[in-house]
């Protein structure tokens, strides 16, 4: 089917004006060659693994590899990526069997961004109704905040390289039917994936949309003119907290460090400490009580002082 479509598209394409051909020539010149090495460290949970699979299924230009053995010598990932001809690395680093860190890196010479991933929900466990073609090119929707800070600019660029499917990739599908959205809120980056579903336009909305769509060329299919866009979520969902940005790939000087990020280890330790404090307070109280009792001679362990007025003494 795809082949048939391609041939038809080619025929129609040749009929169109030269201007378009020029444009395609430009595209041919400016090749956006991206390949992403997608892999995880050892010790990922099933949820991390499923998320990885979900992301890999959305990246036709991705190369999934086996679990990476080490967590300390991450620079070896560069060699691995070069081996597979990849210029991007998306690495899932799992710690303690619960925390997930996601590394986005451009391979030969950086930069690298490290995120802490939270609120992971895979496609399967979210019972959303959306669906899209495997390997169709997404529209990447970035929050306006991504243009306001240099570090967010870098992150945006990395997302663009990693999640944007290059034009004309051989495994990509010719239609666009989903949006990947990245929003910044609360110092975190929230990632969502929506299906674009075209529905009959509602009457009230018709005139409102009109301005935007009047410029549409005649080339657009006649039937599609009066449709509106509806978004249905597909999944997965996750939230990324940027931690550091390094200049090199998996190394080099740190260009950005997020002060607001607190390591989950620290948070857990804090919680444990709070709990321990409660216990300590209770133990302290108990010790005080015992000491007081001992002082008053009420303790069982200390022998009672003999009182002259004790009944046993009096009536012995």
């Amino acid at each position, binding site marked *: 089917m795809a082949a048939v479509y391609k041939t038809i598209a080619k025929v129609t394409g040749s009929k169109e004006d030269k201007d378009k051909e020029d444009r395609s020539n430009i595209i041919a010149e400016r090749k*956006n060659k991206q390949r992403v090495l997608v892999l995880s460290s050892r010790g990922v949970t099933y949820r991390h693994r499923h998320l990885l699979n979900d992301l890999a299924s959305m990246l036709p230009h991705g190369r999934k590899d086996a679990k990476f053995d080490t967590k300390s010598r991450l620079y070896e990932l560069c060699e691995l990526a070069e081996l597979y001809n990849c210029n991007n690395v998306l690495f899932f680093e799992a710690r303690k069997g619960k925390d997930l860190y996601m590394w986005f890196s451009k391979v030969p010479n950086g930069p690298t961004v490290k995120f802490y991933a939270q609120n992971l929900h895979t496609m399967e466990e979210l019972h959303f109704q959306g669906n899209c073609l495997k390997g169709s090119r997404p529209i990447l929707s970035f929050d306006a905040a991504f243009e306001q800070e240099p570090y967010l600019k870098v992150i945006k660029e990395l997302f663009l390289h990693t999640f944007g499917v290059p034009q004309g990739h051989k495994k990509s599908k010719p239609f666009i039917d989903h949006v990947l959205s990245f929003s910044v809120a609360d110092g975190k980056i929230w990632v969502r994936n929506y299906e674009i579903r075209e529905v009959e336009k509602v009457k009230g909305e018709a005139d409102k949309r009109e301005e935007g769509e009047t410029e549409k060329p005649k080339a657009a299919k006649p039937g599609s003119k009066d449709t509106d866009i509806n978004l249905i979520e*597909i999944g997965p969902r996750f939230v990324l907290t940027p931690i550091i940005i390094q200049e090199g790939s998996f190394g080099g000087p740190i260009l950005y460090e997020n002060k607001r990020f607190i390591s989950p280890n620290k948070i857990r330790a804090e919680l444990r400490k709070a709990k321990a404090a409660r216990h300590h307070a209770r133990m302290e109280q108990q010790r005080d009580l015992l000491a007081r009792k001992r002082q008053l001679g009420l303790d069982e362990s200390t022998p009672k002082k003999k009182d002259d007025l004790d009944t046993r003494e009096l009536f012995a």
Partner: protein
Amino acid sequence: MAKKGATQSPKAGSKPNSQTGDAQSKNQKADRRKSNEPVVEKVAEKEEQREEETEESEEDESEDEQLQIRANGNNESDSEEDSDENSEDEDESDDDSGDEHPTHHIDFEAIDDSDSESELDSDEENDKKQDSNKAQNGMSEDKMDVDKDGEDKSGDEEDEEEEIDVEELEPEDEEDEEQIAAGTRTRQTINNKEGLLTALRRIQLDINPKTTPFSFHQSVVASKRTEDSIPQIEDDLQRELAFMNQALEAARLGRSLLRKEGVPFTRPTDYFAEMVRTDATMEKVKQKLIEEATAKKAAAEARKQRDLKKFGKAVQVQKQLERAKQKREALDKINQLKRKRAEGGSAALGATEADDPFDVAVDNELSRDSKPKKRRADGDHPVPNPKRQKKNAKYGFGGKKRGSKSGDAISSGDLSGFSVKRMKYGGGAGGGKKKANRPGKARRKAAAAKR
């Protein structure tokens, strides 16, 4: 980790230098950039100023001493870089601070200071004041580099900044000096904007809308910040709505741009291909939806039933109350009556009791009371149908029923309904009717057998 923290000066520690080979090429790049892009350069300068400000309070008195430290720090970091930089993980900063606690006394005030100062991004005024100083420094910084540190030519931007600091700053705080001498490393926010922009420029795709078709990158930047439209981040519904709106805007814009470029957008209905989520998953989702719908329906039904039951009970209670009320009223009436009679006939008490041993009067009274009700009830059923009327006339409605159908002397003597004609000729109006053709028994049997 601890060693690193101990040996490096704060700057060097927070921004480890890259290997010299790399760095030199970067330096060249930076120079090239200077000539090309004045705007960015300005940004860089501002950045440096800020950095200096943060430094100023922390730098120590004697230049020489500091230089020494710095040189050491750089050397250390250079050698350490290879081994350390790659093993960096999120624990690093924690580890460092953790290690430092027992060995060195941490100056918390200093930490606070550094934190607040690191956010100087917004303090534009101060920057302006120092602008004049800056210009001079900018000119001389590279020379200084060459003069002072022969081997330490890791001409990064950060390094340059540091060098300026060293040359420029007058020592101020003794505390800070001690701190540096002790080798404590205060944690700073790192936000090297210039470095970030450099890195960005290195990898940036050209997505200029004038030169690049949209279909090349398919990325849309929203017109407004999504965060502004989220009143409360904890509110799931509002948050998701804001995200959805952002995506919707992008989808609409993307569609119009792609159509303008003649890129196929909508998937034709007869185009089938592998989907991201398999049919099995979608089936499951559908099942789940159906299940949810049925559950909802069942719940609604159950609630309705429960309400009905509750209502029915209310009706029952109402009825019981009514009955109790009726009974009470009746009893009241009887008592009242009794009292009245007792008062009225108190003189002939014995006589009345003898006359009316079964409280007939009370019954009468009660029935009289109830009669209007009955009448009203009669009024409810106005005129019965003619058949009923006939029957009523024939069998009576109320009154004596016993023996009403049996004949007596008068009825036997009444011959008004007798007709000779009918009797004799067996015809008349009634006779013809009687001749219904019911065959005799034998004939009927024969017919049944035949059948």
